[in-house]
């Protein structure tokens, strides 16, 4: 079931709205004196497909990296599926906890640079974590990996290693690898930015397919505006470490309310 | 008591004398290695039919055999043919020649690192080859050579202990002599180790810093 994209009436009883699967509460991130995120409040509903757009350096990738625990917030609370991922007060030194490791199991990530393991075949890349992290037996993992490779249209490439594949193929394997861990939330960090233009389509097709056929929550940072408009339930415009505007794609792209959104879209849609 | 402090203090002056000999060997040896290495590198680069091949083989052979055995050869074999120096000179020559084989490789990669366009530009300007080498190629090659030279200097400082086997009285031989005459090895050997460390650790820190400063900019 996909959540309604209609704005909830203010009078709606609170318990009818689904509990958010991702919740950022007053989250800040500083790099020295540079504030990448400024006391961000941000929620994503279960199953929601959200695209994050904005100029580079606006902090949009930082959101994904904090969710994946690749970066530590300077302060704030982050909850995923009801569990606390981060709870940081200013100046606190944070250590990785068991709870953090368990919570992040619910999240998968697709990287801009694919980050496939170059010494392993496509198949080995996919079965590695299910076997060694989830403890799945090898036959089952291979069977599932074969299904996933078919899903991304690479059934015939399972014995190829990353150097033998095109960027588009590598990224599709990376998506299959992330799916093999059955995440509740899948993060996409500019999944097509490192690709040659003619290879972007094949990757977008796979993501589109996922968006339309699964109830997985998807959070995507992208520069592909048309694509974001097509597959998203909601689009969030980021600038300068803060969410400037958030709404259904039709509203953001056709009738943006904020001047900053208008100038950004004018600039990127011009060519 | 295992460690005799009075004894340890009493042998320090002797050990420092040994250290000074070690340092002299290192400085002279490095100078010889740097000069000879450059000579070998240029000879190989010039591709003179037989000579370049001989030099190449010599370099590989020296790198493939132990310093200790080379030292024995110079110390025991050469006098049989009427060539003999005192132990110190023999030591400096042996370690200098040994390291020149390594230095030749360093120069070679440094020379190779100079872009081909530099040679072509020199040719286009009709520069004579001595001028090309001296003013164009080598000054640029030296950038990559300087930090490596530092590394080999430190390595040689430690390796020179091997020369104690051919009766060069440097730090290691001094420590050993104190040990065998007093039947106490612990203090002189421990102090010798500490003296080696006291010189080589700060020196390698310094070279690391040099390395970063001289890192190729392209």
């Amino acid at each position: 079931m996909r959540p309604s994209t209609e704005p909830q009436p203010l009078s709606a009883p609170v318990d009818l709205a689904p509990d958010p699967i991702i919740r950022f509460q007053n989250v800040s991130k500083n790099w020295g004196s540079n504030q990448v995120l400024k006391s961000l409040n941000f929620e994503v509903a279960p199953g929601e497909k959200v695209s994050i757009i904005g100029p580079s350096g606006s902090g949009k990738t930082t959101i994904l990296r904090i969710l994946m625990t690749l970066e530590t917030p300077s302060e704030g609370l982050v909850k995923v599926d009801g569990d606390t991922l981060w709870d940081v007060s200013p100046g606190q030194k944070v250590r990785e906890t068991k709870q953090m490791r368990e919570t992040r199991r619910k999240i998968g990530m697709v990287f801009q640079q694919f980050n496939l393991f170059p010494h392993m075949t496509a198949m080995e890349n996919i079965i590695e974590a299910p076997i060694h992290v989830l403890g799945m037996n090898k036959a089952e993992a291979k069977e599932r990996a074969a299904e996933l490779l078919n899903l991304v249209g690479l059934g015939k490439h399972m014995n190829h290693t990353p150097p033998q594949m095109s960027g588009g193929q590598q990224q599709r394997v990376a998506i299959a690898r992330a799916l093999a861990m059955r995440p509740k939330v899948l993060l996409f960090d500019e999944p097509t930015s490192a690709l040659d233009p003619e290879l972007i389509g094949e990757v977008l097709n796979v993501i589109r397919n996922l968006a339309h056929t699964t109830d997985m929550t998807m959070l995507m940072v992208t520069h592909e505006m048309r694509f974001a408009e097509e597959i998203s339930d909601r689009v969030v415009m980021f600038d300068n470490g803060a969410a400037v505007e958030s709404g259904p794609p039709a509203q953001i792209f056709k009738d943006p309310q904020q001047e900053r959104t208008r100038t950004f879209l004018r600039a990127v849609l011009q060519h | 008591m295992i460690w005799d402090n009075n004894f340890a203090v009493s042998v320090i002056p002797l050990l420092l004398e040994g250290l000074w000999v070690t340092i002299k060997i290192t400085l002279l040896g490095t100078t010889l290695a740097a000069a000879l290495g450059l000579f070998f590198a240029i000879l190989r680069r010039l591709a003179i039919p037989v000579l370049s091949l001989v030099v190449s083989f010599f370099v590989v052979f020296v790198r493939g055999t132990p310093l200790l055995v080379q030292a024995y050869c110079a110390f025991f074999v050469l006098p049989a043919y009427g060539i003999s120096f005192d132990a110190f000179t023999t030591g400096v020559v042996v370690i200098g020649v040994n390291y020149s084989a390594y230095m030749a490789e360093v120069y070679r990669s440094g020379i190779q690192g100079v872009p081909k366009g530099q040679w072509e530009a020199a040719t286009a300007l009709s520069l004579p080859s001595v001028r090309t080498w001296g003013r164009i190629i080598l000054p640029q090659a030296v950038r990559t050579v300087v930090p490596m030279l530092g590394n080999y200097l430190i390595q040689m400082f430690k390796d020179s202990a091997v020369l104690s086997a051919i009766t060069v009285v440097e730090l290691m031989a001094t420590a050993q002599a104190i040990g065998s005459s007093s039947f106490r090895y612990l203090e002189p050997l421990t102090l010798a180790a500490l003296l080696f460390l006291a010189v080589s650790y700060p020196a390698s820190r310094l070279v690391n810093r040099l390395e970063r400063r001289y890192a190729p900019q392209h």
Partner: protein
Amino acid sequence: MSAVIDYAPLLWQGLLTTILVAVLSGALCLVVAFAAGLARLSSHRFISWPAGVFIEVFRGTSLLVQMFWLFFALPFFGIQLHPLTAAVLALGLNEGAYAAEVVRGAIASRAKGQTEACIALGMEPALRLRRIIIPQSIPAMLPPFGNVMVDLLKNTSLVSLVTVADLTFRAQMIRSSTGQTTAIFLTILVLYFVLSYLLTLLTSWLERRFALDRRALAAQRKDSKMMKVGAA
């Protein structure tokens, strides 16, 4: 030349001892390299700091001093090592300290993205190292490891100074009893040279064997074979 032929059995025994010392200390060197190199990378200071001290001390002092210390100074603590043990320990620890820096450097230079991918897949640090980071770093480690091993082989000659009867020790014996210096020393120079050359060959064979693209080619051959089978 006659001395070389007369004493060939002695030289042969010396050669075997040299190879034994090289193999034993080479094995110790590898263990030390990974233990100290990985410990150096640990984020726990009480693991990385001792590893750092070990590496700097063993790299900062002479191998010969270390060997003599184990042989002559350790007895003052009531520990009397067999000469071969002292020799292998000193060689293994000394060259291991150099090789530890190779391990540390190769692993530290692994692309950050690989570690991030592992985290995203829920892989714990130990699993990351064992399955992903170390296997990928092997090709980068091999050439410098080869250099360390050639150094180790040449440095086995120092064990003759603590009375281990290796090739150099035997040559010295034969020299003092026959006075035939030139032939003996030239012979063992050539023997050492052949050994280091063989080590170089071994290293480059391993390099080809472990190269990443080599695995890719092997996988491709498997593919085309399967396709042929499918077509038949």
